């Protein structure tokens, strides 16, 4: 396990380096953007006030409140300090609601939608790819073009296709939202049923776009592994085919785990787009509103949360990968 400890330490150090970089970027980017958010708030709040002195006073009071009158370095440390306390500032567009509160309401929807969808898409894609490699013939020939097609459709395209077909034309599922409008969220059968009904289309649109790419990757990995020398040797040692297929798919899965780590950022991005199209009450939709309304604290808060989630997912996958592939440990040992 010595090799693994080294691997783990390295991964955790990298995780923190990228996290710090993400926080710095997240702090700097909104401040580099053109436009004065405080002026925007004033213009909205103070529509009937024409006295320049009062406006100036309001402006200064907001500047003070948001801490924008202090030096940038000081702002940064205040920002980090607040961040550590879970304080992401106050939303501009829903002032004075705290950003952390808005995110806390949207986050469960996003995690509840994306985590199962990405995992189901990844698993189904890998199973289909492995079957295509093992069965070959007609199954492979029929499946692969479909997978190529699905893998090639952008996230919004898939969401729009599903929306048009199943909800506009066939009327099987609701068009938008996370639950029926007018319902108050509480534990009741009607509410749960409504959530499940609204869940289907965004869920399947994310699953379908993840399946394609995964199936194609898994198929070629499995074909490669099926022709490996150890397969032939194991067969000639009398080991049953079923057992050998087990070896093959376990080994073919390994690059797929790395592949998931590499593509999870893009997958989350695509899933956010799917949320927007279905007006799902998660981070994606909130993000769009924040962009529209120039709500910088909310925007950067969401961006930070998404970045941290993706970094965390990649870190977890790296840790798992080190556990399931002995070669990674051996490589660390040699260094």
């Amino acid at each position, binding site marked *: 396990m010595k090799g693994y400890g080294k691997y783990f330490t390295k991964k955790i150090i990298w995780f923190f380096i990228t996290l710090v970089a993400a926080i710095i970027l997240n702090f700097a980017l909104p401040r580099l953007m053109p436009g004065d958010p405080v002026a925007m708030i004033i213009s909205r709040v103070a529509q009937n006030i024409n006295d320049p002195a009062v406006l100036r006073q309001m402006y200064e009071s907001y500047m003070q409140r948001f801490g924008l009158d202090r030096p940038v370095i000081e702002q940064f440390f205040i920002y980090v300090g607040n961040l550590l306390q879970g304080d992401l500032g106050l939303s501009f567009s829903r002032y004075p609601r705290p950003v952390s509160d808005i995110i806390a309401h949207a986050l469960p929807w996003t995690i509840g939608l994306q985590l199962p969808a990405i995992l189901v898409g990844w698993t189904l894609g890998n199973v289909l790819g492995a079957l295509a490699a093992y069965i070959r013939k007609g199954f492979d020939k029929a499946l692969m073009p479909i997978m190529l097609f699905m893998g090639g459709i952008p996230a919004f395209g898939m969401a729009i296709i599903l929306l048009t077909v199943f909800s506009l034309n066939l009327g099987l599922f609701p068009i938008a939202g996370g639950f029926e409008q007018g319902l108050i969220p509480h534990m009741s059968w009607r509410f749960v049923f409504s959530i499940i009904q609204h869940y289907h289309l965004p869920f399947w649109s994310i699953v379908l776009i993840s399946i394609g790419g995964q199936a194609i990757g898994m198929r070629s990995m499995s074909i490669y592994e099926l022709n*490996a*020398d*150890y397969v032939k040797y*194991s067969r*000639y*040692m*009398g080991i*049953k085919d079923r057992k050998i297929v087990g070896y093959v798919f376990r080994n073919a899965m390994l690059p797929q785990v790395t592949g998931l780590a590499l593509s999870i950022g893009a997958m989350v991005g695509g899933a956010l787009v799917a949320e927007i199209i279905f007006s799902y009450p998660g981070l994606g939709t909130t993000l769009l509103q924040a962009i529209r309304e120039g709500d910088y604290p909310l925007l950067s808060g969401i961006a930070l949360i998404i970045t941290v989630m993706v970094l965390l997912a990649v870190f977890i996958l790296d840790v798992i990968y080190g556990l399931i592939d*002995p*070669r990674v440990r051996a490589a660390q040992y040699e260094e």
Partner: protein
Amino acid sequence: MSKIMLEVNGLTTKYITRYNESVYAVNDVSFQVEEGKSVGIAGESGCGKSTLALSLMGYYFPPLHYTKGDIIIDGRNISGMDPDDVRKNILGTEIAYIPQAAMNALNPTRKVIRFIEDVIWAHDPKISKKDIHDLARERFETLNLPEDTLNKYPVELSGGMKQRTVISISTILSPKVLIADEPSSALDVTSQKMVIKMIHDLMELGYIKSMIFITHELPLLYNVTDDIMVMYAGQIVERGSADQMIFDPIHPYSKGLMGSILVPEDGTRDVKITAIPGTPPNLKKPPDGCRFAERCQYVKSQCRVQNMELAGLGNGRTSRCMMSEEELREAYKNE
């Protein structure tokens, strides 16, 4: 006369190509191997050596197909047996195989001991884990392999160690016939020596009862095996003792092959190396007559029409040539 461990009668196997053409890579091969003996198979690349090795296992995967002939191991005919029966009761226990590319013969993500368990359980699921571990430890000890090899992953072993590990695994069920397909070709000379010593030990300790050793390195065969068979275009062209074959080959092809040996001995710097001109025939359409006729310097018109059978020459030697031993010796003398 000692017991016959392996008897092969008229064995013919073919590859079926993607375009449905049949390539008879092993054509009407007959020979015997007695208990305690080792037989070498020599020949240039593509002559069917490795295909013969695989064909002898009695277990065929596409594109290799069985056509006709008998493989009799210690009195038991395994050709025509149910494949699952062969897998369970023949492979590894009666006849075992050491692959050409032992570098990749082991599943990279499985510890050596786990693979040994898989091998043994494939033949007898009732054996306890402890018995398997005891057997493996005992074998590794007698064959001078470090015991901790068992708990390593194949990636953690050097090339020579990997090859010796594979040999120990192949022979762990004490097969009656061991087929070694170029087990030392990819190794440096020191590892090669260890592998050869190990193979001698296996025979001496009685872990194997007979052996077929395939290589294109003729000097190695002289060291390792009792008899040598020379193969050409899917057929055996000559068989004799190692001494006879190396120093006194009779068949024109063997003669040419032995003439191409490079040995770093006194005076050999000035010896001219002879190579056999031409290339082997296309086995999709083998010639009617002698398969070597095109490249033979002693060819007669009759050779192109009539293919000879392997015929005894006395002294236990056999050869496949139109010309008699005397005629050939006369011809060689005049060179």
